[in-house]
């Protein structure tokens, strides 16, 4: 099968300057993986293992690291800068994938209504295509299009943030624990919205979580990180069909079996 490599990550080291621990903290070390188009990658790791840092590096928000990240639509590597100065080369934006980012906090502009927040990230053609109506309907938010985010519940704000990422029709969806601190019912619902979207549009997904259940529910492939300095200790496909994941007994049995076979993931939590 000849799929195009979409995402290649090769981070040798990511260092933070720390004042408390007098000196440098190595946040990430030797993080190497590639993702094919349409994969649903869950990044599972304990708190503080550099998951958010990893996403910031991949999306280009944080250019200061040793290594290279390629987001090109075709394979084009060989730019392996050793320091932060050639970060421009490391992150060329031409021909780059469209990234939809769902942050841990919804990060909606509070001074713009729901609809205006969506319009903000869209081009005129995209707005005219009617995608806003479509997405608002899919997230059951039509009645709130003229509402300001502060008047919405946190669950609804998360939904807006989710469809904002969907709206740009991303090649890569990047999600940083987007569903923490939601009640179970809302969490299940949003999982379903996400999976539906993924199955119809088939973007690549990078989903960060520290919950093994959530990871196994969503991912087609799992990357497990060690605690600091974060590095990949397990890279494994999740081989359970999506319909089966919705059957509670089957899913529970799978989680138990998976944890037994992969003791590495037990340290998480």
């Amino acid at each position, binding site marked *: 099968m000849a799929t195009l490599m979409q995402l290649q990550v090769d981070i040798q080291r990511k260092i933070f300057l720390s004042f408390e621990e007098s000196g440098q903290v190595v946040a990430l070390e030797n993080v190497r993986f590639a993702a094919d188009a349409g994969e649903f990658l869950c990044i599972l790791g304990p708190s503080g293992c550099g998951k958010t840092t990893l996403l*910031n590096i991949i*999306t*280009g*928000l944080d250019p200061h690291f040793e290594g290279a990240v390629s987001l090109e639509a075709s394979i084009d590597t060989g730019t392996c800068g050793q320091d932060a100065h050639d970060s421009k080369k490391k992150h060329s934006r031409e021909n780059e994938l469209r*990234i*939809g*980012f769902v*942050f841990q*906090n919804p*990060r909606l*502009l*509070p*001074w*713009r*209504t729901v609809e205006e927040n969506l319009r*903000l*990230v869209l081009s005129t053609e995209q707005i005219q295509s009617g995608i806003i109506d479509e997405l608002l309907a899919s997230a059951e938010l039509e009645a709130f299009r003229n509402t*300001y985010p*502060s*008047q919405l519940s946190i669950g609804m704000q998360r939904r807006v943030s989710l469809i*904002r990422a969907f709206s*740009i029709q991303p090649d890569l969806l*990047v999600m940083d624990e987007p569903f923490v601190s939601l009640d179970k019912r809302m969490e299940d619902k949003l999982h379903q919205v996400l999976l539906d979207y993924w199955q119809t549009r088939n973007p690549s997904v990078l989903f960060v979580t520290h919950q093994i259940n959530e990871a196994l529910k969503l991912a087609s492939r799992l990357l497990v990180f060690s605690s600091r300095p974060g590095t990949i200790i397990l890279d494994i496909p999740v081989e359970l069909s999506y319909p089966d994941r919705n059957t509670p007994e089957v899913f529970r049995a799978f989680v138990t079996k998976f944890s037994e076979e992969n003791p590495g993931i037990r340290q998480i939590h």
Partner: protein
Amino acid sequence: MVFRGSSFGVSLLSFVSLLAIWYLVALWVDSRIFPPPLTVLKVLLESIAQGELQFHIGQTLMRVVTSFVLAMTVGIGIGIVLGISKSLDRFFDSWLTLFLNIPALVTIILCYVWLGLFETAAILAVAINKIPNVIITIREGARALERDYFEMAHSFRLSRTVVLRQIILPQLSPYLMATTRSGLALIWKIVLVVELLGRSNGVGFQLHLFFQLFDIASIFAYTLAFVLVIQVLEYGLLQPIERRISRWRR
């Protein structure tokens, strides 16, 4: 209280008693150096009938608006840059302190000396006086800008214009309103001095003239008219704008 629940009643009473005190004081002192309300009103109406008052207030307002726009544009730009960049801020901080403490009169005199007694010099002098205040306020706001929204903008690849208009300016809006308010108050006072020193029209020029003629009634009339205009700006323009931009707050 008779006026409980009627704020209009209280305002009216307050206004009427101010007029009464004015009238009584005018009765008590020589009315030439402290004219009573009716005399002032007469002068005011005469001046309006001649078209003089409107002309001079118009000239002054034009200078106020021009120098205000100039000071705000420059001040906001520099303020944002200094608020975001720590190193530039450190470098220019002493410059800012210097300019903040130059008396308005010095700037005005120097501008007239260097540029001549022209409109440009007048406008520039006023703007230079206001710019450091704008910078200080906007810098404070820019320091408090939320990093999260910039990251969001970056990952969704929003253009610089969109970031400025949709992300930076809304966050700065309370600071913008503050600096607009204090700006108007400061600027119109400086404009009068500028007119007094080197222009041949405007409220400042007129006041200077009345001073030489010892025409206190006209000074009162112009002052009242001008205060009224500024109040109209406040209630008719600034407050509606403020309500509009803070709609989203709960």
